[in-house]
């Protein structure tokens, strides 16, 4: 597994500077644009809707979780499909590494990437005074877990994908709607009543809630445990399925 991780890490070492710049710029633009820009409008007009904190403080942890989801999904789907079709998995298959090790190594690397990107995001949040202390560490782990909960099932599916446009389709029709219905930009309580139960089933909602309550310091043991259990189940379940689908594709 570590040798498979090592491959991805070698690639990353060539591009890490550029990738860190993106990791910092991305939240910076979002927090300035939406947090400060849209936030000024929200804070002036409807301050009661978001539990007495500034819109930026509400929005930032939601975006943290959603960004973790998006990064992890793209690497876990398009990245995996490419590696399985004509990339790293193909060159590693004739070596002693097993398909299961290739899956584990790649997922470990995706977790590492999400950790770095989320860390950069949280540093930017801290610079805006939106998070502080040990809560930041909790939110970092929460965001990473959110990423892995998406990457593992995505990888289990994508290792069998032969046409990259299928990844595009899933991104457009599954991942993008999750942004809207998981409380990223506004609280789920503002949605029509009948749609709320659906939101509570969405994995991103659990990621957003976990990161937001940790970041605002309002997390409860019970609440966080439920979110963590839900996300862990997705991550572990995804990995178990990936072990089967990886072998099916790489050792036909």
């Amino acid at each position: 597994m570590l040798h498979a991780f090592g491959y991805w890490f070698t690639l990353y070492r060539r591009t890490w500077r550029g990738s860190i710049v993106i990791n910092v710029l991305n939240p910076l633009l979002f927090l300035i644009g939406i947090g400060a820009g849209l936030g000024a409008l929200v804070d002036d007009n409807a301050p009661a809707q978001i539990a007495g904190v500034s819109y930026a403080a509400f929005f930032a942890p939601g975006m943290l979780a959603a960004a973790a989801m998006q990064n992890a999904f793209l690497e876990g789907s398009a990245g995996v499909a490419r590696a399985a079709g004509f990339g790293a998995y193909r060159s590693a298959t004739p070596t002693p590494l097993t398909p299961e090790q290739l899956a584990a190594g790649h997922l470990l690397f995706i977790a590492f990437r999400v950790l770095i990107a989320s860390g950069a995001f949280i540093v930017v949040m801290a610079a805006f005074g939106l998070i502080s202390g040990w809560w930041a560490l909790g939110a970092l782990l929460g965001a990473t877990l959110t990423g892995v909960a998406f990457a593992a099932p995505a990888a289990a599916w994508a290792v069998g994908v032969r046409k990259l446009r299928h990844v595009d389709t899933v991104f457009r029709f599954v991942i993008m709607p999750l942004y809207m219905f998981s409380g990223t930009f506004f609280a789920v309580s503002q949605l029509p009543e009948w749609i709320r139960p659906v939101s509570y089933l969405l994995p991103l909602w659990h990621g957003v809630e976990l990161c937001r309550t940790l970041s605002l310091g309002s997390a409860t043991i019970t609440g966080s445990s439920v979110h963590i259990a839900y996300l862990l189940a997705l991550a572990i379940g995804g990995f178990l399925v990936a072990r089967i689908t990886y072998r099916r594709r790489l050792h036909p």
Partner: protein
Amino acid sequence: MVNGRPLVEARNLTKTYPPRGSTAEFHAVDGIDFEVQRGESFGLLGPNGAGKSTTMRMIAATSPISGGSLRVLGMDPMRQGPQIRARLGVVTQDDYLDNELTVRENLHIYGRYFSLPRAVIRDRATRLLDFAQLREKAGDQVETLSGGMRRRLTIARALINEPDILLLDEPTTGLDPQARHILWDRLFRLKQEGVTLILTTHYMDEAEQLCDRLIVVDHGRIVAQGSPRELISRYATRDVLELRFRLDERDTAAEKLRTSALATGGNDTDGRVELLPDRVLVYAADGEAALATVHAMSLTPLTALVRRATLEDVFLTLTGRSLIE
């Protein structure tokens, strides 16, 4: 190690792909037997889709067998895959090199997959880059290499673990003639050093150059086996006369030849006439004499060529089809 036992032993080896959607169940490999001895250079010759690559994948322990038995280096590929793969070198049809990394980095990463210490990889990489004539390219990105260089790098990469067997799946397909000859030369050196080679090819000249012994496969079955020389003497005549006719004369000429003494052997033991889309082949012990007979029949071919029989002719004799369409 496996005291005198063959490195690879296949008995009634079968690979069946289950039906998928509209495609029916498919027997890619349909009960084949063979053995490969240490130091031997063993070839699988056959057209595309004959089951060569599937057989190679089963030997490489990257595709489970469906039936029969297979031992590789005395081990069971189904249960000891990683241990077997640790001692094989595999050159796949597509090279799957990492374009973003340098030549040396590609070797390094690959060596790490075998858990080799970094210092060992460094030493071997230097030696292998010399062997593959890629020393000056060591620091270049793989993207910049030519097709022949890429293939040589793939072979160097497959040698990083000093394998007991080197598997090559169509090593020269898609290369220009000069690149092929350089590659053959490298493979011949390995053979001289006693490396056991197993290769698939649909090029007859390649099999004749590199293989001590080969099996000819078609539709997942073995149709003949032996050394290239043996196969040619058993299934073909010494000479082959290739004739081309004007299109409007071709059919009548072919018909005349087919009913002549040339087709039934005449003074030869097993002469034969084979009609191909673009030319007519006359198998004969003495090609010049056969050509004289053709002229005596007052046929006037546009071109006539007398050559030695090759494995291509063996395949044509056995299956009635050319290897390369």
